[in-house]
């Protein structure tokens, strides 16, 4: 079925077109929307796109980094200042998908995809969306909780604070096919240290619930403690609390619950 494609020069015009038409979807890199069209998704009758250069901007020079929603994973990988995001970017797709798929689109990717968003959730990112009167900042966790209602929202950019060092931020995607495959589970942890103790623990999980979620019980087990074996073991045993994984072709819900603690322990103790 043919759809109407509307192309706008500015993101704000595109946002207006999106919010006024429930059957409109924003086309970023195409890996989600074109796939839906190829599968004959009749709920999409309009595709909105914009050539606004602001959406492909990267600001990675300072302590707080901002990525335009249209920035591709290949561009993240080409940016030396974004080294802390290279592991999540590299874990997505093959080279063609990384040349096309975008940071903004990943926020909407359903299981077993959306791995980059797991990393952003652990980094307490802020999602900037186009609102009725200019831009509005939404904490990423709040954005994800309301994701089903966000189809008419245009994401402009995502920003987060750079981790203090490479030890403080860790990421791992468990896949059956290497180097490319959908996620069995995805884990990201941001554990800043203050005086030898963890201050502001963040543990985020992918494929453990309908959207990417924070493992709050694991965070509580880590908070205020030294990252030793006992602390890590306590976090690993608490990590399934509040999760609701599903069965899919890559793994069962039972399997996911069984392995998530094992992988969290390995991730936090630096084991392969």
């Amino acid at each position, binding site marked *: 079925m043919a*759809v109407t494609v509307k192309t706008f020069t500015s993101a704000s015009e595109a946002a207006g077109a999106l919010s006024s038409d429930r059957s409109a979807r924003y086309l970023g890199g*195409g*890996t989600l929307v*074109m796939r839906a069209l190829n599968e004959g998704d009749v709920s999409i009758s309009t*595709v909105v796109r914009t050539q606004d250069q602001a959406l492909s901007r990267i600001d990675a020079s300072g302590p707080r980094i901002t990525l335009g929603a249209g920035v591709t994973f290949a561009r993240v990988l080409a940016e030396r200042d974004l080294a802390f995001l290279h592991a999540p970017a590299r874990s997505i797709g093959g080279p*063609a998908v990384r040349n096309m798929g975008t940071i903004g689109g990943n926020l909407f990717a359903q299981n077993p995809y959306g791995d980059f968003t797991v990393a952003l959730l652990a980094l307490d990112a802020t999602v900037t969306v186009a609102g009725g009167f200019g831009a509005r900042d939404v904490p990423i966790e709040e954005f994800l909780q309301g994701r089903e209602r966000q189809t008419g929202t245009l994401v402009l950019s995502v920003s987060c604070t750079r981790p203090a060092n490479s030890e403080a931020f860790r990421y791992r995607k468990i896949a059956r096919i290497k180097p490319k495959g959908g996620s069995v589970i995805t884990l990201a942890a941001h554990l800043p240290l203050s005086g030898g103790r963890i201050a502001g623990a963040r543990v985020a999980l992918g494929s453990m619930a309908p959207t990417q979620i924070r493992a709050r019980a694991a965070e509580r087990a880590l908070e205020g403690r030294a990252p030793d074996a006992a602390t890590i073991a306590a976090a690993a045993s608490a990590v399934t609390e509040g999760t609701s994984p599903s069965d899919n072709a890559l793994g069962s819900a039972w399997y996911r619950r069984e392995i998530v603690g094992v992988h969290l322990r390995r991730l936090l103790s630096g084991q392969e």
Partner: protein
Amino acid sequence: MSKIPLQFRHNGRDVAIFVDGGTNLLVALRELIGDMTPKFGCGQGGCGTCSVLVDGELHLSCLTLAETVAGRTIETLDGMKQGPNLHPLQRAFADNFAAQCGYCTPGMLMAAKALLDRNPSPSRDEVVEAISGNICRCTGYEPIINAILAAAGGRVSA
């Protein structure tokens, strides 16, 4: 619904076509231009056999909205051979038994070309990474990896 006029460069030649809204680049290439080298596999971005180069970058044509390539340069396998001679990658694929049923071969060759255009002497790991978005159900990948390494090492008589 009205058709959308679209012009781009296809294997060194300017083409102009009319597409329906929502048409993907793979359909435009195969049905409107007659270039049957990019294949339809999954339509989901999982198999890689529709891979083409857009301005030298590897893209999946089935997930590319045709009108987004207006004014850009598209390369497909159809443009790879050099006159009557096979491209060194094509020769290496033949010499190393890297094609069996052949359905993945157009995508594999484009992924390999995207790699070698940027990195003429890749490591084995880099080759594996470069074709990681392309599925082959016949060869077990080893002959394909060997073929790409042979082409990169100049151990092929084109």
